[in-house]
């Protein structure tokens, strides 16, 4: 089974018949972007990281406004949410700032419902990965082969 992520979409139900369309899994790059968005820039450092003269990161500042939101932005592809005229507020293929603006204009309870749905989806993914490791899937450690040097009677040092 491939370790690469296929772009598969999943529908997550919300209350009142609404739903989210999300990525089934995040790629490594997308997961790193979720982490990176959690930190805000201070002192001109890119991505929330202040870099010293040695080129080593000196400080990172957690952005409380991104907690929850960052993961939603990582997973969310589209939704069924409509405006007052009943038209779907389209977010598919929109830039992150457009999706962020749409999320920030929701009622807080509805925003929380979306965050909770995406976090539950992510938790199910994590549980599935753990189960795969336990059952010896691609991410688990396989049995270690005996050293050929030992088999042949040679030393390796």
């Amino acid at each position: 089974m491939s370790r690469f992520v296929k772009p598969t979409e999943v529908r997550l139900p919300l209350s009142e018949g609404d739903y989210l369309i999300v990525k089934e899994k995040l790629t490594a790059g997308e997961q790193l972007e979720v982490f990176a968005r959690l930190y805000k820039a201070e002192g001109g450092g890119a991505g929330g990281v202040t870099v010293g003269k040695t080129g080593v990161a000196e400080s990172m500042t957690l952005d409380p406004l991104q907690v929850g939101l960052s993961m939603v932005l990582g997973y969310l592809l589209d939704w069924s949410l409509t405006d007052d005229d009943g038209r779907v507020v389209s977010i598919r293929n929109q830039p992150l700032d457009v999706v962020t603006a749409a999320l920030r204009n929701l009622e807080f309870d509805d925003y929380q419902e979306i965050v909770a749905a995406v976090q539950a989806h992510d938790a199910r993914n994590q549980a599935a990965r753990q189960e795969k490791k336990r059952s010896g899937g691609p991410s688990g450690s396989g049995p270690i082969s005996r050293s050929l040097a030992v088999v042949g009677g040679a030393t390796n040092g």
Partner: protein
Amino acid sequence: MFEGPVTLRGQEATIVWGYHTAAVCTSWTAARTPQGQWTLQATLKRADPYQLRQQPLKFTAPRVGGFFCWPVLSATLGAGTLAAVLGPPES
């Protein structure tokens, strides 16, 4: 949709693999030979070499009232450029 030799040019376009944007084009030319084969030449703003090797890929370009869309049968990535063989247009 098209018959005979045709050449279409545009500026913004994307190549998508599922929900991933595998490449963003800044200018492109799609041409149909008299034999009916479509080819694409494009300059790229960014591209993901892994995603451009997956299937199915679609080349989509905005037009008045919608999008052109071709399946990408094969793609060759150059230095900031892309050459591709396209299937018949889907829209």
